[in-house]
């Protein structure tokens, strides 16, 4: 078995292979901030338990208030000893959030209204900081003094169908209840042509 003696080439090739792997590993820079949970888990978490907190019980010591509005709005008026982190700068001070998480303080985000806070809240949540809560509060100014009123989220304010029926009832002329034209039920053709699955086989 002469060919077993010929080792020169196999050594060169294996060393090249190991070098390639080492270079790949050394030049590999771990992305600075990474997601901690994937989308299904996030969805499941945010729909099951609630992260809302009301104005009354925010003065316990290990709560840190964070204002997500912009700098000048923060100057105009903010809740006492709140820290201002404008939404676009969240990623820059992720060290601050990491340190918060280590000292397991709860960060309470608040802004002009809950909808505006929802964006940084969900973003931080996916990055793995699950020690955050959302202050359901609406801030407004009157004579440059901040008024914060608690408001609730996702509450249907008016029963629209009742309003429509009532308006139809009390309109004088007998209006044949115009069946709102239902355009044909939209059935959608879905061509998942984004990525051709690689067919294969022997």
């Amino acid at each position, binding site marked *: 078995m*002469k*060919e*077993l003696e*010929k080792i020169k080439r*196999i050594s060169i090739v294996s060393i090249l*292979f190991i070098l390639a792997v080492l270079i790949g590993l050394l030049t590999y820079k771990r992305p600075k901030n990474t997601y901690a949970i994937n989308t299904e888990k996030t969805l499941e978490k945010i729909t099951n338990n609630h992260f809302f907190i009301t104005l009354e019980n925010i003065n316990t010591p290990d709560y840190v208030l964070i204002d997500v509005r912009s700098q000048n709005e923060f100057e105009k008026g903010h809740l006492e000893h709140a820290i201002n982190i404008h939404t676009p700068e969240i990623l820059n001070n992720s060290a601050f959030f990491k340190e918060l998480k280590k000292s397991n303080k709860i960060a309470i985000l608040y802004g002009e209204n809950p909808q505006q806070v929802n964006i940084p809240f969900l973003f931080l949540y996916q990055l793995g900081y699950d020690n955050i809560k959302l202050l359901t509060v609406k801030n407004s100014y009157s004579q440059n003094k901040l008024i914060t009123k608690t408001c609730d989220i996702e509450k249907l304010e008016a029963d629209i169908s009742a309003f429509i029926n009532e308006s139809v009832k009390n309109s004088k002329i007998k209006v044949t209840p115009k069946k709102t034209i239902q355009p044909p039920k939209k059935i959608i053709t879905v061509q998942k042509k984004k990525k051709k699955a690689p*067919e*294969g*086989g*022997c």
Partner: protein
Amino acid sequence: MKIKKQNKHLYWNPYYGGFLLGILIIFTFYITGRGLGASGAMKSSVVAIVNSAAPEHAESSAYYSKFLDDTKSPMNNWLVFETLGVLIGALISGGISGRIGWRTQHSPKITRRRRLIFAFSGGILFGLGAQIARGCTSGAALSGMAVLSSGGFITMLAIFGTAYLFAYFFRKNWI
């Protein structure tokens, strides 16, 4: 001429060959997302032959119709091109080391005819088995193992297992 004659049987170090084959499989998966293959090409050629010989039979039978679509001929398939490449590659390598020549390689103990008969019957068995397991050694086993497919591992174990079991019966052909 002497040198060419002398290194007719000088093959590569198997680890070197295995290494390059591994690199090639990585390259194939990286570029095309699929592994190598061989028996798929023979299947396409059989389908093409049957389709040209008896089109209506091919349409009706459950198995052929799976591979017939009128847009492109069954031969226009990734594996057929790859098999073409294999032939060319082997020709080049054979040419370099002077192994090209019409001959039948058989162990001195058995006759040429017996070797051809066994080759033919082995081919039939292999063709049958490759269709059932949807892959041959290079398609299912090698490419399957590269992506840790359990089907690939099972096929590889089955092939080498039974081959070792039945090696005793065919030993006169080889040793």
